[in-house]
């Protein structure tokens, strides 16, 4: 399944960029093409972050465990569109004016939030390879990659702080993020109760349990 699905999905992920390029080439990006490019790449960054965050709940709930094989690439696409989004800002909006950008980052909280979201993605993109998982160690790698929760949150806040009055779209993203986080919280609470329930009878074999175990627990 994964073998043929992977290339199809990954090509589809380039669709938003292809569409922008095609429309741009044919002069179909409307009155303010740079604004369209900025908004579109920003939207797709958030979408890929949310899709990446959906992989784990989806695969657990549907028991389609092979889905994990897609997660890394979805995450990298979030980084890819995020890089394009940042590039439109650095190049098309600020024309590489470093002074102006630094002032922006310090003064404008929506830029601060956006930069935070992007910066948090950098270590995740860099350590996305199998080699890095080995080097860091699975547990620590997983902990590091939980930064995506914060990155996505910062991305949504960036959007909320940007709009003038109509919060409906950014709040939709916030709702999606909230649901995906809620799932994790529920799972974490459940695993905790289950682990505690399981401790006496299963996890620790009878003979290896210290004699004074019961007194330690209370």
């Amino acid at each position, binding site marked *: 399944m994964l073998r043929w699905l992977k290339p199809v999905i990954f090509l589809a992920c380039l669709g938003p960029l292809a569409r922008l390029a095609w429309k741009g080439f044919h002069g179909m990006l409307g*009155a303010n093409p740079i604004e369209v490019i900025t908004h579109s790449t920003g939207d797709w960054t958030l979408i890929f972050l949310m899709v990446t965050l959906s992989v784990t*709940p989806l695969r657990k709930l549907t028991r389609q465990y092979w889905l994990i094989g897609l997660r890394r690439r979805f995450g990298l696409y979030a980084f890819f569109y995020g890089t394009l989004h940042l590039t439109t800002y650095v190049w098309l909006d600020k024309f590489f004016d470093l002074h102006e950008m630094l002032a922006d980052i310090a003064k404008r909280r929506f830029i601060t939030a956006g930069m935070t979201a992007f910066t948090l993605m950098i270590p995740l993109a860099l350590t996305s390879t199998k080699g890095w998982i080995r080097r860091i160690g699975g547990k620590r790698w997983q902990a590091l990659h939980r930064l995506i929760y914060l990155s996505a949150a910062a991305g949504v806040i960036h959007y909320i702080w940007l709009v003038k009055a109509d919060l409906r779209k950014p709040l939709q993203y916030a709702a999606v993020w909230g649901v995906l986080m809620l799932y994790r919280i529920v799972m974490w609470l459940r695993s905790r109760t289950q682990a505690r329930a399981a401790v006496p009878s299963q996890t620790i074999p009878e003979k290896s349990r210290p004699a004074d175990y019961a007194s330690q627990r209370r």
Partner: protein
Amino acid sequence: MLIKRAGDIPSSEITPKNLCLNRRKFLTGAAIAGAAAATGIGLREVISPTTIVQAGNKIDGIKKSSFSTTETITPYKDVTNYNNYYEFSTDKYEPAGLAKNFRTRPWKVKIDGLVDKKQELDIDTILKMATPEERIYRHRCVEGWSIVVPWVGFSLSELIKRVNPQGKAKFVEFTTLNDPRQMPGLRAPVLNWPYVEGLRMDEAMHPLALLCFGMYGEDLLNQDGAPLRIVIPWKYGFKSAKAIVRIRFVEKQPINSWNEATPNEYGFYSNVNPTVDHPRWSQAKERRLGEFLKRPTLMFNGYGDQVASLYNGMDLKKNF
């Protein structure tokens, strides 16, 4: 929340199995809905922007105006397909389609407040008050983009003179139509509808302040504020109220909609001013639609020679 002591209850007893499964189903649904919602938000992006070409009726007997700029006029299709018109939609590409069947006749404008004769003026009476002029103005949006538009109309003062405001009237308040059946954007409480804007009396009487009913030599298009709007070229675009149904003369400074929504971001005056930033973005530069590089924004949008004296002695940082 009831927290059961772990250790003496097997986990299967904490939640009955069928509930467990239901919860699993619910969570599956939620996750799928979440992913779908995220993708759905994106799909809407795929649809926009579209370009709709429309044409109005030619307006006869338009005279030229010395107030016009000689700068390149922004293409008609851009000005008529890129509209900040929240009564229709907060997406700038949507009003062109959503306003297509907007009814601009019959149309009355209520004149009230501190005037000698309160009255309802028919739009066609207003249009005959003075000779239409073409005024090619720069138009700068608070968001950082700008256009050059050949508006058609006459000075707002022509109307104000004819309705005799009283001496106590210090401000003029403009109200936009509030008809959710025709204007779908009004169904969401994005701003406190109806849209209200205001000018100080001397600003409203300034010859540059335009009562506008046409563009590019034709009738104003619905998405650009038909049948009647004002155009105040030295102020950010949102001051130029569209589809006006009421003009009220008042003693106290009106509360304009954007100021009411976000007082620290949008003031009453809202003069174009490159030295006073919007709290969330710089106002030093602007992108003229159709241009790649940004250009510097001019004080009072380049109309300083004519209007700066209106604000003598005022702190424009405070009165932004």
